[in-house]
Structure formats: structure tokens, C-alpha cells
């Protein structure tokens, strides 16, 4: 799975980080912070492996 340009985003109302914007296999997506979501699980795996960094939210 090719994940690029990962960056947290905030809930527009609460101002708290609630997901990650990134591209997966060149498709732009928003990934929720749910361990049962297989994309988020893969993001965590790549971060742990040191191959992916998630930028802070604006």
C-alpha cells in the first residue's frame, strides 16, 4: 500500500484532530482514527516501521 502526504486534520467544529488526510495508491482520502479501519492500521504500521510520517494539523 503506497501511502503519501499524510497529515492530521481537525474537526472543523471541535478543533480536535479526528483523522488523517493522505493519498493511498494515488487516491486522495480521509482516514478515521479507528484501529479497525484497515487503512489506519496500515498507517500505524508504516509509522512504526519508520517509513511514514504524519504531519501535524494546520
Amino acid at each position, binding site marked *: *500500500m*503506497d501511502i503519501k502526504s499524510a497529515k492530521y*486534520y*481537525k*474537526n*472543523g*467544529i471541535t478543533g480536535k484532530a*479526528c*483523522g488523517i488526510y493522505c493519498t*493511498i*495508491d494515488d*487516491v*486522495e*482520502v*480521509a*482516514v*478515521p482514527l*479507528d484501529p*479497525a*479501519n*484497515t*487503512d*489506519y492500521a*496500515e498507517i500505524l504500521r508504516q509509522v512504526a516501521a519508520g517509513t511514514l510520517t504524519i504531519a501535524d494539523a494546520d
Partner: protein
Amino acid sequence: MSKAAELAALIGSGQAQGNKNFIINGAMTIDQRHDGSSFTVVNGNSTTGVIADRFRVNEASGAEFTAQRVADAPVGFEYSSKITVSTADASLGSTEFHRMIQPIEGKNISNLNWGTSNAKTLTLTFYVKSSVTGQYYISVFNNAADRTLLKGYTIDSANTWEKKTITIIGDQTGTWLTTNAVGIHLMWSLGTGSTYQSSTLDAYQAGFYMAKSDQVNLAATNGSTWQLTGVQLEVGDVATPFEHEDVGTTLAKCQRYYETLLNHNGSFNVIATYRSGTDYRAQWIFKTEKRATPTMGGSFSATITTTYISTQMASYYKSDGDFYGSATLTATAEL
């Protein structure tokens, strides 16, 4: 056994009842992502390797494939999922492989009692057609990929639909999840490197394997094809006729894992919008509750943010102006 006794036995086992197929979209009826269009599968593809819904090609070698749901099927079916080798890789490295797979959600297999002494036997039926004859294997493995059952089948005639029936005994040990994670992986090997090969057949073993060493490498020759349809996995050791369910039922089952929303003239086709001052909010209420909180896809203007995602809905927020988005929004909760 008389026909009446056979019927009584089937009813008693649950086989003669509806909704008997653990496989979703076994007739390849639903193709939400591509609607019959072809696409390329290369090394590293993940959910983008889905052909017909719930059936995914995983490619991890130097080969490339063209994948497509096609209107070519045996009598009684309309579609099949077809894989065509577009770039050959005749010599697979030890960890390289290609495969077709359907992960089955744990919540759907809780009645099988796998991992206990009451583990139920399953029967797998499918139709397969390939330009390459020879020995092939299916693999049944658990979520942790530490328990595997390998079963072989042969393709006897090139470019001819063949019906295969395979008995899958239940595993009395190991952990087979009954949660919203994968309960059972069912996969068809299309070529497997030595790391994932085992000579142990017809019995569960520790570890993760995909085939025996004599498995055909479909990618050995450019232009080779392999097709699959009519997949049914049911309780018991008797293969019953394929359960053709109505398209709405199959679509709803598929939408637990993937759902699309088409927009209209560049605007969100949402069920409701809300405005407070210059703030706009919109919600997409999913037709089917998702397995897990889904990944949201689609292109947005820079100022639109996804503010909330649950298994039932997604909310969007824009500080001013109208919403607009891509032609198709997606919610993905694949296993």
C-alpha cells in the same frame, strides 16, 4: 439415502435454508468500483485491486495484471472476475506471489465454532477457467495468519469452464475471530514463492502458506488468463446449488465494506445540509452501516473538511460558500 431423507438432512444441517453462502457477491454481480471497466494491478495494490466487490487481487511480484469483471460465465451465471497477465514474471522470488482473495468477516462465521472441538465442516464450490492447465491451490487461513489449510484442485482443460468442489474441515484449534475483523481468509493462489509453500495438504498447520511447490505460476506467460465465478461456501460436506439472491440483497451486503455516492452537477448529493451564518455543513448518511469507521474518498475544494466519520455517516464542513466535490464520493471499510 432417499431424496426425502437427503432433504431432511439438509434442512437439519441448515444447508437447505436461505442465506447459506458465506461468500458475498459469489456471482460477481456487483462491481461498484469499475462497473465492468478494466484496470491494472501492480505490485503493492491494496484495496484498489478489488475486481467485483469483495474479490481482491493481491500482486507482490514483478508481474502486472489487467483485471476486469467480464460478461463471460458458465451456464446459470452472467459475470466472472478475470485476470490477464500483462507483464510476465516467470521466476518468482521466495516471498513473491499473486492471488485472488475474499476475507470473510468474523461476525459472519460465529456459528462455525472454529477453534473448538465443535468446528463445522464447510464445502466450497466455484467455477474456474484458465488458459493455463495444471495444479492450483486454495488457502484457508485465519486473521493472524498463523493457521493454514491448503487444498488442491486441477484445471484440466484450457479456456473451459470447470466446476470445482472442495471440502474444508473446520479447525479445532487456533484463533478464528468472530469480531468485525477477518474471521477467515479464503484465497486462490495464482503463483507463490518458496517462503509460502508447504507440502502439507488437507490438514491445518501452524504458519501461513498459500500453495504447494507445484502451483502454477499464472504470470509465467504474458497473456495468460484466469477467471472465477459462482463461488459458494456453505456449512456441511454436501455442495448444494448456487444460491442466487436478489441484486439488492447482494448490493447491501457489499455496501457494508464499500459504498459510493454520485453527485449531481458538481454538488454534493447529500441527504441534508445546514447553514449557520456563512458556515455550511453537509452529511452523507450511508445506505448500509459499515463494518468499521470507513476511509472517505473523493476530491474536495481546499476549504472543505471532513469533520466527523462514523460507521453510519460522514459530515463535512465548509466555512463559506457552496459545497462542491468530486463526481463520486466513496466510503471504504474493507477487511
